[in-house]
C-alpha cells in the first residue's frame, strides 16, 4: 500500500463525517443553514449533530485502537475489550456507582468503571497464565467465560435493584442521546489513543513476549501496565458516554493486519481511521434504515460485526489463527 493512500482514506472518512452531519430528523441542510431557518438549523447542528459526529469518530477510533493494543499485549488475534472481561467489568463498575453513589458526576463514574475494567482485565491475564493454551481460540473462550461470570454478578445485583434496563443501556452502544456537554469524556480517550501511538514501538516489542522484550531493553511489566490502563480507561469512557460497541476492536485490527502486517506504529493510524469510518457508516445506516426512528450502533455493530467476524474465522488460511 503506497503511503499516499492514508490522506486519501482520511478524506473519505471526512466525507462520511460530513454526511453524518446531515442525516437526521430535523431539517438540517445547506439550504436551511444559509437560507430558510438559519438559527434553528445552526442550533441543531452545533448542539446535536456535530457532537454526535465527533463522538462517533472518537469512540470508533478509540475502541478499534484498544482492540489492537489488547491483541498486541495478549499476543492473540481474537481479543478485544468484549472478549477479555474488560467491558463487562466496566459495566459492573457503572452499575455499582448507580447503586451506591447515584449523584456521582460522570467523570467519577468513569474513574470507577476504569478501575473495575483494569481489575477485570488483570484477572483475565492472571487466568491465562494458569490455563494451558492448546489453541489460540481458547484465549477468547476464557475471556468470554470470565465476562459471563462478571455479567452474572452484575445481573444478580441489578435484578434485585431493578437496574436491568440501565445495564442493557450500557451493553448496547447508542449515540442518539449525545449532545453538547455529554460526550467530552471521549476527548480523554482520544488523548489516550495518542499516547498509544507515541508508545507504539514499545507495544510492538512487548508483543514479542516477555523474554524478547526484556532482551531488547524494554521494561515488559511497565509497558503491559501502560497498555492495560489505556485500554481500560478508553473502554470505560466509551461505555460511560454511549455504551459498548462490540466487535470493533476485533474486526478492524484484523482487517488492517491482513493488509499491512503487524507493525503497530504503521498500522495504528489505519486502525483508528477504519474504526472511525466503520462506526460512522454503521451509525448512518442505523439512522436511515427505519427513518425517522433509529437502530442503535450497538445493534448495528453486533449484526455487521458478527458477520465480519464469522468471515474472518472461516477464512481457512492460517493468518488469523
Amino acid at each position: 500500500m503506497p503511503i499516499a493512500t492514508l490522506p486519501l482514506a482520511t478524506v473519505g472518512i471526512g466525507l462520511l463525517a460530513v454526511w453524518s452531519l446531515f442525516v437526521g430528523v430535523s431539517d438540517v441542510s445547506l439550504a436551511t443553514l444559509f437560507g430558510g431557518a438559519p438559527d434553528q438549523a445552526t442550533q441543531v447542528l452545533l448542539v446535536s449533530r456535530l457532537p454526535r459526529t465527533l463522538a462517533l469518530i472518537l469512540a470508533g477510533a478509540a475502541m478499534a485502537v484498544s482492540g489492537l493494543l489488547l491483541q498486541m499485549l495478549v499476543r492473540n488475534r481474537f481479543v478485544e475489550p468484549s472478549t477479555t472481561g474488560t467491558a463487562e467489568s466496566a459495566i459492573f463498575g457503572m452499575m455499582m456507582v448507580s447503586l451506591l453513589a447515584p449523584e456521582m458526576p460522570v467523570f467519577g463514574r468513569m474513574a470507577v468503571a476504569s478501575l473495575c475494567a483494569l481489575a477485570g482485565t488483570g484477572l483475565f491475564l492472571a487466568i491465562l497464565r494458569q490455563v494451558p493454551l492448546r489453541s489460540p481460540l481458547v484465549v477468547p473462550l476464557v475471556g468470554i467465560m470470565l465476562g459471563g461470570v462478571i455479567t452474572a454478578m452484575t445481573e444478580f445485583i441489578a435484578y434485585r435493584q431493578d437496574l436491568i434496563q440501565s445495564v442493557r443501556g450500557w451493553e448496547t452502544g447508542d449515540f442518539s442521546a449525545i449532545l453538547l456537554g455529554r460526550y467530552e469524556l471521549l476527548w480523554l480517550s482520544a488523548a489516550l489513543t495518542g499516547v498509544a501511538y507515541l508508545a507504539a514501538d514499545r507495544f510492538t516489542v512487548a508483543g514479542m513476549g516477555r523474554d524478547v522484550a526484556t532482551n531488547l531493553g524494554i521494561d515488559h511489566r511497565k509497558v503491559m501496565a501502560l497498555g492495560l490502563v489505556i485500554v481500560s480507561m478508553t473502554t470505560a469512557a466509551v461505555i460511560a458516554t454511549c455504551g459498548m460497541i462490540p466487535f470493533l476492536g476485533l474486526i478492524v485490527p484484523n482487517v488492517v493486519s491482513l493488509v499491512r502486517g503487524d507493525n503497530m506504529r504503521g498500522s495504528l493510524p489505519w486502525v483508528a481511521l477504519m474504526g472511525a469510518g466503520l462506526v460512522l457508516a454503521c451509525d448512518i445506516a442505523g439512522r436511515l434504515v427505519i427513518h425517522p426512528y433509529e437502530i442503535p450502533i450497538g445493534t448495528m455493530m453486533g449484526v455487521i460485526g458478527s458477520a465480519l467476524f464469522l468471515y474472518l474465522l472461516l477464512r481457512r488460511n492460517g493468518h488469523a489463527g
Partner: protein
Amino acid sequence: MPADRRILSPTVVLGGLSALTLLSIALFMTLGARGKWDFILAFRGTKVAAMVLVGYAVAVSTVLFQTITNNRILTPSVMGFDHLYRMIQTVLVFQFGSGLVASLDPRLRFGVEVASMVVFSGLLYWWLFNGAGRGDNRRSLHLLLLVGIVFGVLFRSLTSFLQRIIDPNEFLTVQDRLFANFNRVDVELLTVSALVVLAVSLAGWRWRRTFDVLALGRDAAINLGVEHRRAVMAVLVMVSILVSVSTALVGPITFFGLLVANLAYLVVRSHRHALILPAAVLLAVLTLVAGQLVLERVFGYNAALSIVIEFVGGLAFLFILVRGSAR
C-alpha cells in the same frame, strides 16, 4: 486409583451423595408442611421433579461437553443457547404483548423454544462439520465454539435493542423469564421433558465407554479406534437436546453446570464417566434441592434460587480458574 489413603473410593462417594440427596428431598417434601398432605406432596413433588430433571440435564450436558472439548472451563451455554432463549422470550413479548404471550398454550411455547434451540445448534454443527469443518477437526471444534459465541453476541445485541425499546411494564414480564425459576413448571411439560431426557440417556448409556476414550483427546481416541468425528457429533446432539429441554423448562442456567462438573471431578477422582456422570447429577440435584430448601425455609425467600446459584457457580468458576486446576 490414587495412592492417597484418605481419598474415599468412588462407591462410597456415590453412596454418600445419594443418601444426602434423598435426605434433602425428604426434608424438602415434609418440612414446615401445614394442611392437606396430598396437596402438599403434589405441589412440592412437582418442584422436586423439576429440580431433579434440570439438575440431571445440566450436569450430564456439561460433563459431556467438557469431555469432547477437553476443557474443564467450558459449558454448553457458551454456544449461545441462553442468548437465543432470551431473544425468543423478548421477541414474543415485543411482538405480541405480554397479555397474549401469557395466554399462549404452554405446550406450544415449550415446543417452539425447544425446536428453535435444537434446530439452531443442529444447523451450526451441520454447517461447520460439512461446510467449513474440513481440515483439522480439533481446530474446528474450537471454531464451532467461537462461531456459537459470535451468534450469541448477535442474539444478545438484538435482545438488548428490543429490551431498550420495549414498554417498561412489558419488560417486567420478560425480565421474570430471563432468570431460571423452578416455581412455574407445568406438570405436563415435565412429563414430556422427562421422556425426552430419558430417551437421550438411553442412547448415551451405550456410549459411556466411548466417552472415557474421548476424554483422552482427539489423537488418542482415534488411535484407539473411535470414530472421533462421529462420536463428537453424537455427543453434541445429545448436549443440545438436554440443554434445550432444561432451558425451555425453567430458564437459562449458565454456571451451575460448571460448578457441579468440577465438584464431581474433585470428589470422584476417576476418569470413568460411569462414575463421574452420576456424581455430577447427584451433586446438581443436591445443590438445587438443598438450596431451595434453605432459601424457602430459612430465608423465607422465593424465586431467586437460580440467581444465587449462578452467582455462587460463577465465583466457584473463578476460583477454579485462578487456582489453575483447569486442565
